[in-house]
């Protein structure tokens, strides 16, 4: 799976995700990527793109949950995403990248690793796996 989230100086947010799914998946199976709110979601607070086991991400409504936790619990993006990844989905199943309307970035995962990268206007850049 691949994905990208971005926010501009005006707070405009967007997300995109694309995938081939599982190795050896049944013909006709769809995963979380095209299910809006599961693996892909954006509103006026944040943009989220997820990766991992699609079935778990659908059941956890992962991407929408990050936005909902921000909206209803008032948490920051980082805390909301960490809560969803660590508390709402079984370990070994999910990773996500997310940005907020105020330019926060977070890339949590509960798998062994996730290929990821980010950059912000203030010059911060990160590329990581583990």
């Amino acid at each position, binding site marked *: 799976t691949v994905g*990208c989230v971005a926010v501009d100086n005006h707070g405009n947010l967007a997300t*995109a995700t*694309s995938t081939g799914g599982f190795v050896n*998946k049944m*013909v006709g199976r769809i995963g979380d990527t*095209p299910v809006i709110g599961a693996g892909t979601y954006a509103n006026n607070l944040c943009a989220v793109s997820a990766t991992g086991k699609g079935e778990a991400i659908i059941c956890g409504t992962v991407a929408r949950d990050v936005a909902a936790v921000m909206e209803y619990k008032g948490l920051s993006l980082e805390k909301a995403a960490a809560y969803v990844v660590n508390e709402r989905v079984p370990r070994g199943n999910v990773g996500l990248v997310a940005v907020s309307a105020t330019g926060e*970035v977070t890339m949590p995962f509960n798998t062994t690793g996730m290929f990821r990268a980010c950059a*912000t206007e203030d010059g911060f850049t990160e*590329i990581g*796996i583990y």
Partner: protein
Amino acid sequence: MGWAIALHGGAGDIPLSLPPERRLPREAALHHCLQIGVAALQSQKHPLDVVELVVRELENFPHFNAGKGSVLTSIGTVEMEAAIMDGKTMKCGAVSGLTTVVNAISLARLVMEKTPHIYLAFEGAEAFAREQGVETLDTSHFVTPENVERLKRAKEANRVQIDYTQPIQEDVKADEKGKEDGDSQIG
């Protein structure tokens, strides 16, 4: 407040001993795609254009599980899927079951912008792709030798795999025999 961008190339059981020949090309691709996204944001492109641009690049990179390099179904075919969403308008588009579309993410955006729907799948999505004139190629374009081998190993072990899964060991395969799920649900 400032611009920000983040991207991923999949998650899973990535061994700490991942060989350089597998790690370095992926890191280079992430760096390349990040630079494209940063440049687009710096030139005032809308984030919707930025995420589509970056994901198209990632789809074209054969070491990631999307576009060229997509993993295979149980019968050796590809069925690709994608979604895109704009935060301000909450408009979105999604596609699945694609077998010939080179950049699924751009077809998802066309679903968002050119139809009254948010999701098209399988034959309908393929027909829409041809109607819109997006680039398509024979399905063999998307199949890599590495993924043919991964499918072979997965079928031998009778399990599915997420983006990154360590090679199946013979003793593990033996241990899984008779288990209804094995570890197929977590890759």
